[in-house]
């Protein structure tokens, strides 16, 4: 599927506007987008955080949880099917329920009809307008998985605001960090043609890509939920920290972006920050911080 010979991947960023609480409708719209992305040559389609359910779910979390490791996963069968038939990978967000009835803000990756990864969001914002920890349980790590020879890590929204998450991901071997989010548009500044929140995101993404020498793919949603609008601006940042493709703020749509993995080779050779990273030193310092904090 992914042509390692020329080291390029075609990725579709699906800047969707999910219908809050309507799993069925969202599955339908995901399939339409996946099919049309395939026609345009996409090998992976990436949807935003909680793309199959909507974001500010409140008590609806209870109704929308799916145990993806049980028969309940049949609800996603149409997505597995289209992924298999079209030989395409799909990354989408859903409310996960485990066998012990805990709920997670999760993201699955289905490739060629098979579930190959689930990321449970670790950092659940519960401040200001957010109340995720009220409903969800925290995930327990940042995994890296292999998608046809390419190493990928998924971070969900707030995960990426903790720089330790991308540090872990790249040191585990991630070449591409995918950040799916549902980031509300907020804050304006004179002379700035974007929301302050979008501006902060772009600075963060550029820092992650440049200093960790990886591709960063950011897929944010649009649309409104009870007056709160999401800021879109999905983009691809290359390991040189430059924005390679970028979508409109606040309008739904898709773009296909070609990632050239040779750039990783080039950037990591020129600026070998990752090679020189001293994990033992970091570990020693972290252990000492944790030890000392016990006596604070």
């Amino acid at each position, binding site marked *: 599927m992914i042509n390692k010979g020329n080291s390029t991947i075609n990725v579709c960023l699906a800047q969707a506007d999910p219908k809050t609480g309507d799993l069925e409708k969202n599955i339908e719209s995901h399939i339409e987008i996946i099919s049309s992305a395939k026609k345009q040559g996409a090998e992976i389609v990436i949807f935003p955080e909680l793309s199959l359910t909507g974001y500010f779910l409140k008590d609806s979390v209870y109704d929308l949880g799916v145990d993806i490791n049980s028969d309940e996963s049949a609800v996603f069968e149409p997505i597995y099917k289209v992924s298999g038939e079209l030989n395409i990978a799909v990354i989408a967000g859903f409310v996960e329920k485990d066998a012990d009835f805990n709920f997670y803000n999760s993201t699955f990756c289905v490739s060629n009809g098979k579930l190959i990864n689930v990321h449970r969001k670790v950092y659940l914002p519960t401040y200001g307008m957010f109340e995720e920890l009220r409903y969800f349980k925290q995930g327990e790590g940042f995994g890296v998985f292999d998608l046809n020879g390419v190493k990928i890590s998924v971070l969900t929204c707030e995960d990426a605001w903790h720089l330790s998450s991308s540090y872990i991901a790249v040191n585990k071997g991630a070449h591409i960090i995918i950040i799916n989010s549902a980031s509300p548009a907020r804050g304006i500044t*004179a*002379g700035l043609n974007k929301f302050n929140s979008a501006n902060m995101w772009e600075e963060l993404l550029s820092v992650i890509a440049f200093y960790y020498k990886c591709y960063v793919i950011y897929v944010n949603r649009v649309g409104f939920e009870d007056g709160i609008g999401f800021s879109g601006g999905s983009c691809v940042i290359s390991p040189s920290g430059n924005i390679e493709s970028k979508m409109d703020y606040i309008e739904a749509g898709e773009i296909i972006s070609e990632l050239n993995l040779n750039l990783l080779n080039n950037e990591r050779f020129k600026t070998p920050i990752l090679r020189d990273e001293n994990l033992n030193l970091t570990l020693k310092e972290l252990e000492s911080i944790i030890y000392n904090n016990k006596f604070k």
Partner: protein
Amino acid sequence: MNHKIELPKIDELNFPLIHKHLCNFIKSEVFKAGLKRVVLGLSGGIDSAASCFLAVSALGKDNVTALIMPYESSSKSSMDDALKVVNMLGIKYYVSDISNQINEYFKIETDEAEKSENTYITGDIVLKLRKGNKMARERMSILYDYSYKLNSLVLGTSNKSELLLGYGTLYGDTASALNPIGDIYKTQIYQLAEHLGIPKTIINKPPSADLWEGQSDESELGFTYKTADDIMYLLIDKMYKPEVVISLGFEENIVNNIYERIKKSQYKRRMPLIAKVSERTINIDFRYLRDWT
């Protein structure tokens, strides 16, 4: 602490995005309600003109209806300015004079000052306020009747400054289904209005609720919107404590006055309190979006 933190301006660079955002909000929330139209009260002032311009951009002129609801003491220029807006935008409008209802209601009271239990202020002012509130609620009542009649949502026209200061009538002008300008301070409404192309006569006149002759927001409040907005931006948006705002050079009595006003009017910004009896109570632990599906 950064002393230069100040209320951000709506300018030519951020206006296109804010405009699109507010139009998307109107469209999205109207469509989610299964409707395609809005109705709003047009006073001739800058706030309702701004809401009206945004609604027409969002939904098209055929899907916006304005109600002009003068009282006998309303200034003639208010009516002229409201008509200027409807003519400019080419939208349908109705004029519904509320003088009869209001006068009929108050006719039965012979001595309002004695009948009022609000003894701490003079009878004259009590009557003025009661009449003002009654007018605001009469207009709301008509708007909601038209909402049903025209299959349209009521579009709100209160800005963030008046909502925070409680300078509005509970279940009157503050009532609506959707409010595109409720998170925009009055100072920013002026900037928004310039970019929306609202007529200068509307932008330049002193702000007034026009509930009685010669009424002025700023003389009633005791400070200008500019001062209040600069202070409220720090208090609310930036979450600075009043003493910090005062330390930045703002007048102590105005900061305290504004902070008290915001606290005292909190009830106007919330739904009625419900006594919890059951295990799951509306809006306490029965929690869903209004856009629940």
